C-alpha cells in the first residue's frame, strides 16, 4: 500500500468511527456500568478450574439457587467427571439418591418417583416455564446449564479486538458475579413496585430476583484450623457459584485448553518445517536458474 492511499484509508476510517462513536456513551448509561473484570482460575490459555471452588460453588447452587433455577442439561455423573468439581463416584451416587426423579410409566401406566441415579440430570424446580412464572410473580428464573455463556456485556471498539489477543472471554462470569454483588438501594427518584429490586448491573436496573446471597448464609467446609479457608461472604459465594456455573456451561473447558496447547505447538513446528521445505523447493527454478 502506498503512503498516500494508506493515509486516505486512515482518514476514512477515522471519519467513519468518529461518526459512529457518538452513540455508545448514551447507550452505556442505559445499560449500567461495565462489570469489573475479575481474575478467574479458568481464564487464559492455561486456565483450569479450581476444584475446591467448584465444590463450594456447587454447595451454594444447591442450597441457595436450586430452589428456583434448574440445571436441566447437567447430570449428577458430570460432577465426578475429570475437569469438573471431581466429587468421587460414591459421593455422586449418594447425592443423586437424595433427589426424587420422576420416571415411568410403570406397568400400571403410572408415572412414579424413584431415587436419582448418577445418569439422571438435575430435576428442575418447576414443571415448566408457566409453572415457574406462576410461582415467581411472572418472572422466569433462567436455567443455569449454559447461562454463563448466555450472558455478556458490550466490550466496544477497540477493546473487542484486543480481546482476541488477551483471550478475554469471561464476560459471562464477570457479569454474573457483578449482578450477584450489585444489589443496592434505588437512587432517589426511582420507585420500586412490589416484586422489583434495584441492581447496579442489571440492564435497566430493575430485577425480579431479590438479593439471593447474604454473608454467612452458606457454611463452607472447614480447614484443619476449624475455619473455612475462604471467607463466607457474598463476594466469595458469588465467585464460587459463578465458577461453578462456568463449568456447567463449558464442562470440557480444561480438555479444550489442554488439547489446544498441544495442537498449537504441533502446528507451529509443522509450519516451521514447511517454511524451510518451501524455501528449499523454491531455491531452484525448474529451468535451473536460481530463484530471486
Amino acid at each position, binding site marked *: 500500500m502506498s503512503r498516500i492511499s494508506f493515509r486516505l484509508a486512515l482518514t476514512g476510517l477515522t471519519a467513519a468511527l468518529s461518526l459512529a462513536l457518538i452513540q455508545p456513551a448514551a447507550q452505556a448509561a442505559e445499560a449500567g456500568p461495565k462489570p469489573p473484570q475479575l481474575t478467574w482460575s479458568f481464564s487464559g490459555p492455561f486456565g483450569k478450574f479450581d476444584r475446591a471452588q467448584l465444590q463450594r460453588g456447587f454447595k451454594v447452587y444447591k442450597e441457595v439457587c436450586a430452589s428456583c433455577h434448574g440445571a436441566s442439561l447437567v447430570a449428577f455423573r458430570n460432577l465426578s467427571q475429570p475437569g469438573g468439581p471431581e466429587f468421587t463416584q460414591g459421593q455422586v451416587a449418594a447425592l443423586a439418591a437424595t433427589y426424587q426423579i420422576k420416571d415411568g410409566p410403570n406397568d400400571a401406566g403410572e408415572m412414579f418417583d424413584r431415587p436419582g441415579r448418577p*445418569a439422571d440430570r438435575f430435576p428442575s424446580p418447576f414443571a415448566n416455564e408457566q409453572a415457574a412464572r406462576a410461582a415467581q410473580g411472572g418472572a422466569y428464573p433462567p436455567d443455569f446449564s449454559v447461562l454463563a455463556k448466555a450472558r455478556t456485556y458490550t466490550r466496544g471498539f477497540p477493546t473487542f479486538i484486543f480481546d482476541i489477543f488477551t483471550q478475554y472471554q469471561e464476560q459471562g462470569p464477570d457479569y454474573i458475579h457483578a449482578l450477584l454483588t450489585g444489589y443496592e438501594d434505588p437512587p432517589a427518584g426511582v420507585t420500586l413496585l412490589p416484586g422489583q429490586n434495584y441492581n447496579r448491573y442489571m440492564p435497566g436496573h430493575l430485577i425480579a430476583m431479590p438479593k439471593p446471597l447474604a454473608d454467612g448464609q452458606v457454611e463452607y467446609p472447614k480447614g484443619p484450623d476449624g475455619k473455612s479457608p475462604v471467607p463466607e461472604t457474598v463476594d466469595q459465594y458469588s465467585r464460587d457459584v459463578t465458577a461453578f456455573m462456568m463449568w456447567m456451561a463449558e464442562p470440557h473447558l480444561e480438555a479444550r485448553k489442554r488439547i489446544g496447547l498441544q495442537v498449537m505447538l*504441533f*502446528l507451529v513446528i*509443522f509450519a516451521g518445517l514447511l517454511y524451510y*521445505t518451501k524455501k528449499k523447493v523454491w531455491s531452484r527454478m525448474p529451468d535451473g536458474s536460481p530463484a530471486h
Partner: protein
Amino acid sequence: MAHATDTSTGTTRRDFLMLATGAAGAVGVGALVIPLISQLAPDAQTVAAGAPVDVDLTPIAEGQAIKLFWRGKPIFVRHRTKKEIEEAKAVDVATLRDPQTDAQRTKAGHEQFLVIFGNCTHLGCIPLGTAPGESKGDYDGWFCPCHGSHYDSSGRIRKGPAPLNLPVPPYAFNGDTKIRIG
C-alpha cells in the same frame, strides 16, 4: 527442464528436512483421525445410561417369562417349570453345538430362573417363546422365526443356523427374587 526436475526430486526429497516435514504431516493427519473416529463410540450419556438395573422377579409366575431391556438389548427372564429344568439338565452336553451345562447358565440355588439376552445369535432377530401362546420351538425353549433356529429351555442352540447359545448377561441375585443386571 527434465534434468533439473531430477535433481530436485531425486536427491533433495530424500533429505532430512523433507522427511521430517512428511513425518510431521503424517502425525498431524493421524491425530486428526482420533476425534473423527472416537465420536462414533457410545457417548457419555449412553455409557451412563447403561448402568446396572434392578429387577424384581416376584411377579413372574412359574412357566411365565418376561422381556426387559438393558443397554437397549432385550433380556428374557423365564421362571422355568420343573419339567423344563429337567429337560435342560438331561441333555448330553457333548452333543451340543455350543457345549454348556444348564448349571453354567443359571445361578446355583436359583435354577428356576433363566436370564438370557434375547437376540438370536444368528442375525439378531428376537426369537418367539416368551409370550404365552408363542411357539417355543422343538425343544421347549425359543424359536427364531427369521431363519428357523431352535433354542432349548436353557436357551442353548439345538437346531438351525445360529452358531451359539443365547448369551447370559452379567447379573447377580440380591436376595431370593431380586436380581441386578450389569
